């Protein structure tokens, strides 16, 4: 693989060069004198915690916001003092958003060639559109049928279409925002092969991701931003995950778990030969009181499907579940709650919260019945006091508990969901990828609350796709693949690499 890694940077002319870029929003300094450059044909990664200024930097590069005076921008050899979005687009700077922004009802070819519709022509040249779509896909080694409707493709294929679309309208720099967050490992590998193909064509890629392993795997160089300041740009080769994490946060992920579970704890959950067609097959495991059980595996391995089954949302076809020795039929959420099972869903934004409602209302939603001690109503003052107390207890950072949940940061939204479920006093809490898209600092506080919870005799099933996470937090780890549990580990007996091996092989 040919790359820019070991060549001195100055030998290659950068496609994009930023000097002394600053930006303030109100009183907050989002970016502070940042220098940044991207070379043609490199995969440049941008990492930083939430709120570090990553997205502000991207917005400046794409012309969505203007930098403050004194900044210098050179794109393709020409200086600019500020950019408008369409100028940036015309210069070949394209963003592939996390939601991909495709037209699901149109064909692959039409999506790729949709920029033709910006030309002042009244008639559609179908031959040209189809040809352009095929050309671009062929050039990049993609074999999708040009006439397939995009909605019928997998997320991974849709992503490739979105990138092809950028290439079709002459992108020189493609910005990928968290591109791997909804892909399986197989698909991530395919995406990386594809990005290498782009590199060989001289196209620059700016890769933004929370997944440091992936950053180190695909990146030629990594720029780290912390609190609006650039920490530095580093050659990815030779950098370790821990070093990178340290650069991002300025602190090590200091989390270690001291007390491990005693063997003689009573069993609280027993799952026997549970099956559901096309999802998982003959899954058996147990969970003890006060235990953190990790369930790790790629997307589609059946991990989320099992969690949904335990929460009554996805009734199993065969097998049995026992909670505290009693048979649990898993037919409804109400039943699951009665048995003391709580579930914090994977996509907190979509499933866990009513985003436009206040923090207060979101917190009381699961315990409303308990709060109305007398009569039909919950006294507003009591509700308010209760919410204040909860916010304090869970360390949720919020100025006003009547503010809508939408206005909170991702990590704090996560805490609200967590709090909401813990308030129901469950015996078993299922956390589905709770640190997905959350930065290192917030991760640590989530781990901390998990440990506090099991200290109070709660049992937790932690679904995850990060090896480090389950190794740090769990008492026991089950590896799932293809709907089956393929391996069981206790953290003392293996390294992160063992774990990674057993998942990916």
């Amino acid at each position, binding site marked *: 693989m040919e790359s820019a890694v070991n060549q001195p940077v100055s030998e290659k002319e950068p496609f994009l060069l930023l000097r002394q870029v600053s930006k303030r929003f109100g009183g907050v300094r989002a970016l502070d004198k940042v220098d940044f450059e991207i070379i043609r044909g490199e995969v440049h990664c941008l990492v930083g915690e939430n709120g570090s200024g990553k997205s502000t930097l991207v917005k400046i590069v794409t012309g969505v916001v203007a930098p403050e005076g004194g900044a210098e921008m050179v794109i393709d050899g020409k200086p600019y003092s500020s950019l408008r979005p369409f100028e940036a*687009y015309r210069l070949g700077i394209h963003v592939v958003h996390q939601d991909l922004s495709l037209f699901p009802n149109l064909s692959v070819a039409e999506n790729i060639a949709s920029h033709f519709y910006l030309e002042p022509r009244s*008639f559609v040249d179908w031959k040209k559109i189809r040809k352009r779509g095929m050309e671009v896909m062929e050039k990049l080694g993609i074999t999708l049928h040009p*006439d397939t409707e995009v909605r019928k493709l*997998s997320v991974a294929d849709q992503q490739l279409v979105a990138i092809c679309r950028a290439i079709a309208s002459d992108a020189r720099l493609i910005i990928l925002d968290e591109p791997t967050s909804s892909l399986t490992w197989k698909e991530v590998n395919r995406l990386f092969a594809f990005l290498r193909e782009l590199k060989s064509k001289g196209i620059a890629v700016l890769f933004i991701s929370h997944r440091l392993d992936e950053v180190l795997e695909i990146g030629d160089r990594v720029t780290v931003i912390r609190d609006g300041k650039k920490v530095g740009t580093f050659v990815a080769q030779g950098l370790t995950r821990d070093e990178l994490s340290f650069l991002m946060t300025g602190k090590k992920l200091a989390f270690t778990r001291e007390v491990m579970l005693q063997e003689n704890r009573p069993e609280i959950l027993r799952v026997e030969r549970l099956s559901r067609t*096309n999802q998982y097959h003959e899954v058996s495991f147990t969970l003890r009181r006060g235990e953190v059980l990790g369930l790790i595996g790629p997307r589609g391995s059946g991990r989320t499907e099992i969690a949904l089954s335990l929460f009554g949302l996805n009734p199993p076809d065969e097998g049995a579940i026992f909670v505290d020795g009693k048979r649990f039929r898993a037919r409804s959420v109400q039943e699951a709650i009665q048995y003391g099972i709580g579930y914090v869903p994977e996509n907190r934004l979509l499933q866990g919260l009513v985003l436009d409602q206040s923090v207060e209302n979101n917190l009381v939603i699961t315990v409303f019945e308990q709060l109305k001690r007398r009569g039909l109503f919950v006294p507003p003052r009591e509700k308010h006091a209760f919410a204040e107390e909860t916010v304090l207890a869970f360390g949720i950072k919020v100025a006003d508990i009547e503010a809508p949940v939408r206005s909170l940061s991702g990590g704090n939204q996560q805490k609200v969901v967590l709090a909401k479920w813990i308030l129901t006093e469950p015996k078993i809490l299922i956390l589905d990828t709770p640190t997905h898209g959350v930065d290192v600092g917030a991760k640590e506080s989530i781990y901390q609350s998990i440990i506090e919870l099991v200290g109070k005799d709660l049992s937790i099933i932690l679904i995850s796709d990060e090896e480090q996470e389950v190794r740090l937090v769990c008492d026991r780890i089950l590896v799932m693949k293809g*709907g089956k549990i393929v391996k069981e580990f206790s953290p003392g007996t293996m390294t992160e690499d063992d774990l990674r091996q057993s998942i990916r092989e």
Partner: protein
Amino acid sequence: MKIPWKIQRQTEWYLLFVIIVLSAFLTVVNPKFFTLENIFDFLRNNSFLGIVALGELVVLISGGIDVSFTAIATVAQYLMGLVISTTMVNNVLLAFLIPIPIGIALGAVNGVLVYYTRVHPVIITISTLNFYYGVLMFLTKGTWIYKFPPAFREFAKLKVVTFMGAQGVPFGFSFFTLLWIILGFFTFVVLRYLTIGRKIYAVGGNLEAARRAGFNIFRVQLFVYSYIGLLAGIAGFVHAQLNQMIQPNAIVGRELDVIAATILGGASIFGGSGTVWGAFLGVLLIAIIKNGLILMKASAYWHEVIMGSIIVLAASISAYQRKLQIRREKGRFAEEQIF
């Protein structure tokens, strides 16, 4: 694989099947149903419905909805009626040209309101429906117009092909049916071969993506609401021709027939999909059902019950199909991991 847009279009085949079954049933009940004479008559009488359904189709594809077109058609035909009955200009082409700009203008008002207020188009167009219709009723006090110039009366009998009936009464393929087909073809061309047509699909498929791609959303919305306005104007003319009478309250109230027909024809209420062929079949099906109800002497109130049920049914079926598709996708995902 020559035709790039040839994707599975099952909805149309189901519709065709149901239409054939229902027609066969009606023919058994009343053998006259399946005669050339009745079919021509049937197509002629439903050309009003068919023409406005084409407009509704375009609006639905863009992700919007319009219920005000009945009021637009009424206002347009009434103003036309006023002009030709007071001046008695003996020229049908002139009469035809009057409702068109009126329809476009009233439709454009909808488009502007929908874009700038960002209020749901159902709310906007219910309001304009009441506004247009209310003003018309207030000013005209509901007076009917039935005094037309001779050319206007003669034109209604115009046929493209004429046959001689068994009893010596001539019948044939009406000009208005031809107009319906021509407008259908025109709409097809707009949707398939004009850039604006593709933008309509794009906006209906993913509004935010269309905005990010740099498409002018205002132009698209202005176009679709003006387009249904245009067709409502033409349909107003057709309606006046077919009935040889203009009553301000004759058309308003038929919104559901048209929306039911288009949704039945496969246009999604979520936007982004729908075809001219489907909208054509949808209108035929609705018309056949109505015809059947009349043959079976069902009360007029039953017609409304049936129309309401059809909308709920058609919308539920399309929502259910969407769910199945998602589930199939998930199943595929799981299988890929296992094998």
